[in-house]
């Protein structure tokens, strides 16, 4: 069994080398076409990852501000940006601003990259979960 599989393995390794070489040729060709404006840009998943992470950070920001406002009267008063709405106005406006700033920065940092989406998913899930917990009344009211 061992003697008949070795040539087959060798053949597969050679085929793999050939495919990788062709892949590099195709990528070079696409890059040249893109440089000449003849091919649409290949979109890496970095921009999507940036949108997902930034959204999680935005939710976390609002959750954190909610807990901080519960913990401190000074923070609560500072967040009262529009009196009829109260501190909620500051929490949500500042949270939205943080989300947008993080998104813009992450987008420009990652848009040309292909990132590990599993890691992005895990990190985003943790950040989002903490943010959701921090805006849950039994949690943030512990800090009052």
């Amino acid at each position: 069994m061992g003697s008949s599989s070795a040539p087959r393995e060798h053949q597969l390794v050679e085929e793999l080398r050939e495919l990788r070489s062709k892949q590099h040729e195709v990528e070079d060709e696409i890059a040249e076409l893109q440089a000449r404006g003849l091919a649409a840009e290949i979109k890496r998943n970095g921009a999507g990852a940036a949108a997902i992470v930034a959204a999680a950070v935005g939710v976390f920001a609002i959750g954190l501000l909610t807990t901080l406002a519960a913990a401190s009267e000074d923070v609560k008063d500072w967040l009262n940006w529009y009196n009829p709405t109260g501190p909620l106005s500051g929490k949500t406006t500042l949270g939205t601003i943080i989300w947008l700033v993080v998104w813009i920065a992450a987008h420009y940092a990652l848009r040309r990259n292909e990132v590990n989406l599993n890691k992005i998913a895990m990190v985003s899930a943790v950040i989002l979960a903490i943010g959701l917990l921090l805006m849950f009344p039994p949690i943030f009211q512990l800090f009052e």
Partner: protein
Amino acid sequence: MQIVDRELWTVLHGMVFGTIFLLAFAGGLAGLWSLRPGLITLEGIRDRLLRLRVGLVTMAVVAWVTVLSGNYIVYPWYRASDPSSARSRLLANPNTALWHQFGMEWKEHVAWVAPILATAVAFIAIYYGPRLVGDRRLRYLTIALFVVAFAAAAIAGLLGAFLNKAAPIGPTG
């Protein structure tokens, strides 16, 4: 049959804007889920992507209109300091205080999760378009974000409906 302006805005916020978002979720989810290589042709992709993009952008816009109208129009009436406001009435009775201390306190914050996540979902659908068909991980992540947005909106909507039943924002409160 008379509806005063406070009742009208409460209805618009909850039963129009919020409901549009919740109802459109099913279509958006079906659209995202069906972007699978074995299920649709090239023509089908083009057709579905256009509907999906329009639908998701509309949902994101409606989500923002819902939270902004809630934050800056309906909520000020709810939390007004006079004794006839909805908040004052809920807190004055120990049997109903929890509606505010838990119900409104959760609703007013968790609602903002929906537009933020819905905007990210709409962006991904517009930016990547056909790539979502081939990129299963990105598509599943997008769907997960979309489901969380819906859950947040559903919680906020349900609490809002119960709160309005417990302490309606009527003509003077």
